[in-house]
């Protein structure tokens, strides 16, 4: 789908991309990075709109430096920022955008009706966009990126500004773009957690450098941990402490979370984080809880935050540089 080879982009004062080599296969790919990590610069180069300082890149087998027009005909793009005029209806706007992609007038109208239905806009598509909610606007933005049936869509922060429900709906929709529509997706975000659920592959960049590129499964395995919450019992007044002891004895790496921010919302201060080493970890935890006679409140995959990837990558990087020295 997308391949870059030591792709660099330098501006007079900043290096936006630094010898980035990455190979993206068909499917849903997450591009993760903090603000200013070079995500948008990469998208610009991939669309053939900004020449790379050095290195090369191909999209759908087409060279970005020489075949930008052909790439843009086969690729859809959804920008991060608001880009919709408020005084026209979604239908009119998407029809116009379809024609800008080269679709004949009749086909543009048919595809617009289809696409808007697929992204979940029905009667409201005849009303001016100005009156839409943020979620509906995001859907219109997605529709204009899909209307010409591209082979690949580049979605820049599609969940920005959405509430949790809207976020989940958008992520499900993105998943469907690949599974039902057969269109490959490159989606950027600064939240690794949400991409993990949606993507087949995750690419993490920071400061224009590739930190990591792997399938989501590998990701979860490498950095996976399990949040376990138990009740206290008469036999064990502090169930959490007892569990930590038992699990440590079983040879697992355990740490209490306490009132960590992400669990505080659930109203619990008794969560234990267990590093997952394999499928048998789940059995060990279950057995330990049963043996202690505690009640198991929950056991869930913990969501990763991008910070963790950066930490591990940083330490790996330091190791690398000390090796070099």
């Amino acid at each position, binding site marked *: 789908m997308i391949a870059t080879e030591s792709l660099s982009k330098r501006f007079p004062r900043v290096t936006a991309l630094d010898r980035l080599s990455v190979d993206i296969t068909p499917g849903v790919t997450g591009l993760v990075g903090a603000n200013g990590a070079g995500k948008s610069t990469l998208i*610009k180069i991939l669309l053939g709109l900004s020449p790379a300082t050095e290195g090369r890149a191909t999209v759908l087998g087409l060279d970005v430096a020489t075949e930008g*027009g052909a790439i*843009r005909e086969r690729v859809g793009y959804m920008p991060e920022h*608001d880009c919709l005029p408020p005084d026209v209806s979604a239908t009119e706007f998407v029809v116009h*955008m379809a024609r*800008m992609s*080269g679709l004949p007038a009749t086909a543009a109208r048919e595809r617009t009706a289809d696409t808007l239905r697929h992204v979940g806009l029905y009667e409201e598509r005849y009303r001016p966009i100005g009156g839409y909610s943020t979620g509906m606007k995001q859907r219109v933005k997605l529709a204009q990126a899909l209307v010409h049936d591209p082979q690949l869509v580049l979605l820049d922060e599609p969940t920005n500004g959405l509430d949790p429900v809207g976020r989940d709906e958008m992520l499900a929709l993105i998943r469907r773009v690949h599974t*039902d529509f057969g269109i490959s997706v490159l989606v950027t975000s600064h939240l690794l957690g949400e991409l993990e659920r949606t993507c087949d592959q995750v690419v993490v960049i920071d400061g224009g450098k590739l930190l990591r590129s792997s399938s989501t499964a590998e990701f979860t395995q490498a950095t996976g941990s399990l949040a376990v919450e138990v009740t206290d019992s008469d036999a064990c007044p502090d169930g959490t402490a007892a569990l930590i002891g038992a699990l440590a004895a079983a040879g697992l790496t355990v740490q209490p979370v306490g009132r960590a921010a992400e669990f505080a919302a659930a109203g619990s201060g008794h969560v234990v984080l267990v590093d997952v080493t394999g499928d048998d970890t789940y059995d060990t935890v279950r057995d330990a809880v049963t043996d202690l006679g505690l009640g198991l409140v929950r056991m869930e995959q913990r969501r990763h935050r991008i910070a963790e990837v950066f930490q591990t990558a940083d330490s790996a990087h330091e190791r690398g540089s000390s090796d070099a020295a």
Partner: protein
Amino acid sequence: MPPESLTAPAQDVIHNIGYRNYSGARLGRAYARRSLFSQSLRGAYGLGRSTKSKVLPMTLFGVMCAPAAIMVAVAVATKATKLPLEYTRYAIVLQAVIGLYLAAQAPQSVSRDLRFKSIPLYFSRPIERVDYVVAKFAAMASALFLLTAAPLLILYVGALLAKLDFATQTEGFAQGLVSVVLLSLLFAGLGLVVAAVTPRRGFGVAAVIAVLTISYGAVSTVQGIALARDNTDAIGWIGLFSPITLIDGVQTAFLSATSAFPGGNGPGTGAGVVYVVVLLALIAGSFGLLMRRYRKVGL
């Protein structure tokens, strides 16, 4: 109950046929440019937009044509031997209407895409910056041409109906058309440049009117002073500094128009060449400025 009847009701519901791929034609860059041109041109008269946005352009179009219709009616009724107004003079006399139209429609054409940041959606498609600028420029110039050429056509048809001399009228009409083509290109360029640097539509309207009226006011005043001092040479040169007097100068020198300059002191052929050069430079310059403007707002 036989099992078939269980599936029978499903036949009346509309099936979700799922996603259909598009395998039809993709007409590419030139088609997209043409589409953008026609959409912008239609938009300049409010077609394909709300009823409210049709009112102003259509009214101005009517105001622009009405005097021509009246003149024709008078000419036919009185069996006049010539039209009360030359073809080339018509646009100069009605310059305020043209200015208003430009001020209303140029921001509508370019400011919306800039203000609502729709530009990246265009540039992530096959069309490129130059296509966008060419389409918008051509659409605005064509809209102005329609506005200024329609009354000339009314005059011409009317003149023929009044049985005026065919050769003279055709020549005058042709000269008038050349003049309004130049005027349309110049005004479109200036209007779009001003509108493109003022993304707020209200400011854009005010800025376009200001550029047209202030320059014309200043030039006329200075020309008036020059006339009072009998400095007829200067009158011709001062006309270079406002769009409408520039057109006036060019058509006085080359299209046998009567100058609207104070005392009728239009530029001669020598100065006329300078006028044409400045005119072409301004048109090319506005195109260049628009290209520069859109380089910045890319993605």
